[in-house]
C-alpha cells in the first residue's frame, strides 16, 4: 500500500522563549488519520510544540512540514483549512451567542460576511456534537465545560483536516470527557488527524493510536518493544512510581501508593 504523506513532518526544530530553550532539535513525524496524544509534565513544552505546529509561534530553527509543504510557505487562510487549533482556555468578553462564536470558525471561507452555507455548517456541527440545544444560548454564561465544547465546535466548523487540541478535556466532567474522546475516535476513524496535548495518560491509552512524550526539550516515542503504558518507561517521564494494570490488551496505570 502506498504510504500517505505525513500530516506533519518536523525536522531539527528548536525553540526558545528569550534565553530559555524549550525544545531542542526535535525530529518527529505525525501520520495522517491517527489519534495522537502528547504527554509530559507541566512546563515540559507540550503546548509550545502544539502552538508551533499551529503556526501560532514562529518556527525560527528547523522545519515544520504540513502534508509535505513547508508551513512557512502556506498562507494563513490556507492553513485554517488544513488545521484547526483549540486553545487551552478562552476568556469571553462580550456576550455573543453560541452560534455567533461557532460561526467565526468560518472566517477563512466567508471572508467578510457569512453565507447561508456557513450557517448550515454551524448548525450541522452543533448537531453532530449533540449540543444543538446550545445554539441560541449566551456563550459567556455557559459552564466552563460547555464553553470548551463550543470552542471545539468552532474549530470543527472550520472543517480542517487536522485538529490540534490543547487540553481539550481540562474543563469537562466525567461524562463529557468520555463523550469527547469517543467523538475524537470517530473523527480519526473517518480520516481526520487529531493531535492533542493531554494530562491524563489513561484517557490517552484508552483511546489513542500514537503517543508522543515530551521531556527536557526533547520529543520522542517509547523505544522499540516497549509499550507506552509500561510502568518503568512512564517512571522516566513522570518522577513517580507506577503500577500498570492490564486492560483490553492495553493497560492503565496508577501511581503506586504506599500507606
Amino acid at each position: 500500500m502506498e504510504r500517505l504523506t505525513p500530516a506533519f513532518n518536523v525536522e531539527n526544530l528548536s525553540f526558545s522563549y528569550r534565553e530559555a530553550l524549550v525544545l531542542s532539535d526535535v525530529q518527529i513525524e505525525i501520520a495522517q488519520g491517527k489519534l495522537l496524544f502528547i504527554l509530559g509534565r507541566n512546563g515540559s513544552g507540550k503546548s509550545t510544540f502544539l502552538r508551533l505546529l499551529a503556526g501560532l509561534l514562529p518556527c525560527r530553527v528547523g522545519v515544520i512540514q504540513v502534508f509535505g509543504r513547508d508551513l512557512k510557505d502556506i498562507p494563513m487562510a490556507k492553513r485554517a483549512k488544513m488545521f484547526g487549533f483549540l486553545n487551552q482556555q478562552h476568556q469571553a468578553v462580550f456576550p455573543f451567542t453560541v452560534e455567533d462564536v461557532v460561526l467565526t470558525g468560518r472566517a477563512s471561507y466567508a471572508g467578510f460576511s457569512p453565507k447561508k452555507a456557513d450557517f448550515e455548517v454551524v448548525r450541522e456541527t452543533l448537531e453532530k456534537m449533540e449540543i444543538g440545544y446550545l445554539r441560541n444560548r449566551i456563550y459567556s454564561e455557559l459552564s466552563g465545560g460547555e464553553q470548551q465544547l463550543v470552542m471545539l465546535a468552532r474549530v470543527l466548523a472550520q472543517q480542517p483536516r487536522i485538529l490540534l487540541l490543547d487540553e481539550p478535556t481540562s474543563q469537562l466532567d466525567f461524562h463529557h470527557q468520555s463523550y469527547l474522546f469517543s467523538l475524537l475516535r470517530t473523527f480519526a476513524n473517518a480520516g481526520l488527524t487529531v493531535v492533542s496535548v493531554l494530562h491524563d495518560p489513561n484517557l490517552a491509552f484508552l483511546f489513542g493510536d500514537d503517543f508522543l512524550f515530551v521531556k527536557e526539550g526533547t520529543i520522542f516515542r517509547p523505544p522499540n518493544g516497549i509499550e507506552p503504558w509500561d510502568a518503568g518507561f512512564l517512571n522516566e517521564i513522570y518522577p513517580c512510581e507506577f503500577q500498570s494494570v492490564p486492560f483490553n490488551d492495553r493497560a492503565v496505570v496508577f501511581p503506586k501508593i504506599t500507606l
Partner: protein
Amino acid sequence: MKTRNVITLIYVLALPIIVLSLFVGPTQSAGLGAWMDALWGRGTNTDLVFTVIYQIRLPRVLLTFLVGGALAVSGCSIQAVFRNPLTDPYILGLSSGAAFGAALALATAWLPVQLSAFVFGLTAVGMSFFMARKNNTVAIVSLILSGIIVSGIFTSLLAIVQYFSDPFRLQSIVHWTMGNLHLASATKLKMAVFPLLLGSATIFVYRWRMNLIALGDDEARSSGIHPGRDKAILLIAATLASSSAVAVAGIIGLYGLIVPHIVRMFSGPDNRQAVPLNFVFGGTFLLLIDDLSRSFAGLEIPIGVFTMLLGGPVFIYLMKKNNIGWND
C-alpha cells in the same frame, strides 16, 4: 421579538427626526409652519426662512448626525479591537490627541485641521496601546489608565496652545474643545463628510470580522485571519472617523462608550447588526441631544457637556456590572 421592534423603530424614525430637526432652533420665525408657507410662496420673509433652514440648519443637522454615527461606530470597533467594553475614543485619549492636533493646526496653520487631528489622534492611540501592552496582551484597567495619562498629556499640550493663542482665537478654541456644534457650516460639513463616511464604511465592511477579533488573537489566527492587520485597519478607520468628528465638533466625551452599550441592549453583541445600528442610532440620538440644547433659546449648552454628564454614570455602572477590578 420586542427588541426586533425597537430596532425597526430606530431605523424608521431616523429620517423623520433628521427632517424635523430642521425646524428646531432659537429663530422662532423659521419653524415648520413658516417653511410650508415659504414653499407655497406665502409669508413675508421667504428668503430668510430658506436661508436659516437650508444654509444654517441643514449643514448642522447633517453634520451632527454624521458625527454621532461616526463616534458610535468608532467606539464599537475600538471596544472589539481591545476586547474591552470600557473604552471609546475619549477614554483611549484619541479625542484629546485629535483636539490638540486640530487646535495646533488652527493656531499655526502647519497642516490642514483634519489631517493634523488625525495624525495626533493616531499618535494618542499608539501611545495608549503601547503603554498598556504587557506580554502581548492589553488588560482592561491598564488601557483605561494609560488612556488617562495620554489624555492628560494632550490636554496639557492643548493648554499650551491656548496659552499662546490670542484672546479672540482662544475663546473659539475653548468653546470648540467643549464639544460644540453651533459653528457647523456647509464648509465644515464638506471638510468632514469624506473622512467620517470613509472611516465608518470601513468599519461596516469589517463588522463580521470584528466578532472574530473580539474572541482573541489565537482564535483569529487559527481561523485564518491576521489579527494584527485587521486590528490596524479597524483602529485607523476608527481614528479617521473620530478625529474628524473632533476636528469639526470638538470633544463629545464618552459618546462612543454610551451608544454601543445602548445599542447592544437591542441588537446583542453581534457586530453584523450592531455596527449599522450604532451608526443610525448614534446619529439620531446626538441629533436629539443637539435639538434639546438648541431649544434653550439664547443659551446654548455645549453638547460635550451633555454627553459627559450622561456618560459618567454609564461608565460607573458598566464598571460595576462587568466586575472590572485590578486583576483583569
